[in-house]
């Protein structure tokens, strides 16, 4: 069988047979500990600066950010954003409990459906699991309440993120997944799909020059709920010297 042939060839190259049990145990222990490597200094900032850095990085990558004081303010902010962009007041949103609890009916002209996205949907509102400051990246793990198609099919992707869920480094966001998720069928913490999204879609395939709006969304708009006292402080803070 090819599996044995491949493993056999590798072992011949390594000049040994199957890994001795004690060495296999050491490697299994490394997997268990999954040690971190160097985390860049820019990801290790005080809370307020970290959130400010997240915002600056989203903007650097051609995304936009709007801060709102609480979850109740999200529907109005979304409706106003769509109006300002001259987009129709119709959207499909994640059927996530945090979004379910928001007062969408306060904007009766806004047509909202909670489901996965289809090809006809022009605007989506997704729920972010975490934000990662080091590159302005959103972590969007798939779940029944967070369908993947919302990240991809609509031309305008709006993502709701709580400031308290902004972390410094990718590793910290994965630690949140490790701590908070357990999949019934696989027994693991990884959902089927985890997208790390940094800005709207783009291509540099034509003459290696960046052009926004490839197959994914053309616009990425983050609505940041300031549920973290540090977020407010961060809004006013001077740009951090670490930032590049």
């Amino acid at each position: 069988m090819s599996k044995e042939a491949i493993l056999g060839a590798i072992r011949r190259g390594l000049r040994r047979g199957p890994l001795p049990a004690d060495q296999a145990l050491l490697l299994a222990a490394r997997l268990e500990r999954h040690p971190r490597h160097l985390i860049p200094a820019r990801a290790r900032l005080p809370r307020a600066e970290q959130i400010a850095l997240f915002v600056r990085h989203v903007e650097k990558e051609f995304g936009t950010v709007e801060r709102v004081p609480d979850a109740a303010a999200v529907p109005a902010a979304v409706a106003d954003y769509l109006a300002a962009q001259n987009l129709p007041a119709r959207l499909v949103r994640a059927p996530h409990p945090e979004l379910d609890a928001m007062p969408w009916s306060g904007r009766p002209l806004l047509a909202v459906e909670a489901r996965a996205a289809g090809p006809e949907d022009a605007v989506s509102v997704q729920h972010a699991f975490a934000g990662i400051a080091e590159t302005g990246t959103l972590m969007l793990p798939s779940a029944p309440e967070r369908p993947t198609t919302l990240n991809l099919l609509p031309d305008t992707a709006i993502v709701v993120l709580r400031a308290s869920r902004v972390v410094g480094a990718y590793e910290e966001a994965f630690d949140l997944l490790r701590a908070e998720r357990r999949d019934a069928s696989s027994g693991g913490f990884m959902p089927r799909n985890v997208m790390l999204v940094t800005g709207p879609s783009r291509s540099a395939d034509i003459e290696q020059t960046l052009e926004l709006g490839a197959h994914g969304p053309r616009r990425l708009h983050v609505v940041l709920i300031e549920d973290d006292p540090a977020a407010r402080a961060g809004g006013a803070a001077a740009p951090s010297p670490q930032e590049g």
Partner: protein
Amino acid sequence: MPQLTSPAFKENAARALADAALQRALSGSRGAFLARRQAAIAALPEFERLREIGRDIKNHTLAHLDFYLETYAANVEKAGGTVHWCATAEEARAAVLGICRRVGARTVTKGKSMISEELGLNEHLEANGITPVETDLGEYILQLRREPPSHIIAPAFHLNREDWEASFRAAHTDLPRERVFRERRDILAEARARLRARFLAADVGITGANFLVAETGSSVIVTNEGNGDLTQTLPRVHVVLASIEKVVPTLEDCCALLRLLARSATGQDFSVYTTFSTGPRRAGDRDGPEEYHVVLLDNGRSSMVGTPFQDMLRCIRCAACMNHCPVYGVVGGHAYGWVYPGPMGAVLTPSLVGVDKAGHLPNASTFCGRCEAVCPVKIPLPSLMRHWREREFERRLTPPVARSGLRLWAWLARHPGAYRAATRLAAGALALLGRGRGAFRSFPLAGGWTRGRDLPVPEPGGTFLARYARAQREGRA
């Protein structure tokens, strides 16, 4: 197998040098990559340290590759996926075709995958009545033009804007005549509109993988367009094509390498979409594929383990080496004659297809050392190319002209005064030609030997001489 023209590297290169449109595309494209990479790295002071970490992670993995592959496969299966272990390209083609047939697939969408190129998968599917649709913008136009990619991350590196317009007009015959493609934006919009329908109609989506994570059984793709994600999300079946050296132990190891990849590749801090796929749709999920398969390909790589070429298996396919290569910069990717161009291709191709067929490629170098200096996982590309040259030399495969060229080079290297004098002479005589390029296109003492490759302006510190001397001490020269 895709067509191999590596044995004709010299002819290919000569043709490339005489192709004015190609030269325009090459010189137009390169600067952008280099400047963006430079800026991204300047903004991350830890980059040099991260390169060492990246190298060490890959070395650790390769030293225990059997263990990590078995762990990876076990975790894919735990998550409900299937792993197809394939020793050869033929087995891998059969595995993909088998899946497509079983589910009755008629069209297959594809994300960018160099393994797919290595397999010649599109031709194989077409020959069996299945329509493959490339969805990466660069791959899409190459499929229309029926050309192979010329670069591992920017497949249409060799094309100019007019080529795009001409190809679209030829293929999209329903286009109104007044429709213009003056701007890149117009080209992008046309491709996006065309491909939307294909994404939705496909039965199977095939992607590559930048990494496989043993700990979780995940495959990782890194893209900017979103086409790879649509490919792996919308169809009923997702097939991942990955070679065995793509595995890394943990998510933390993967994150460390991800910090290197985008910066080295496109000069972005992070690509737009970095996506981890783990098995098929879960209970309650409202979207995602129902089946998840990994075609795990060896195709000669396991025989590199335990040889000096094991270092090449660290490669994360960022393309920095070709972006910085003076030879690639003038001959382009097609001249290399197989799937992988540039310095990484010059080392990898002989390993995968045989030195007898690709023995010319390691000569396509000036040994300027830039590729090694930029490689995010510190692969000693020049010395690996030298290894191949020596093997080729020993096997007497080198044609007499190249042999005398090599001898001349070796003589010059052993006589530093003459080398410097020769270089000075060349520099003096050819300053106008070479200025601003960091390389010279001809070298009076080497004549035909350097036609088609550049003699670098020797770097401060005599990099080449130092390396050569070291190699001699180690008994390799």
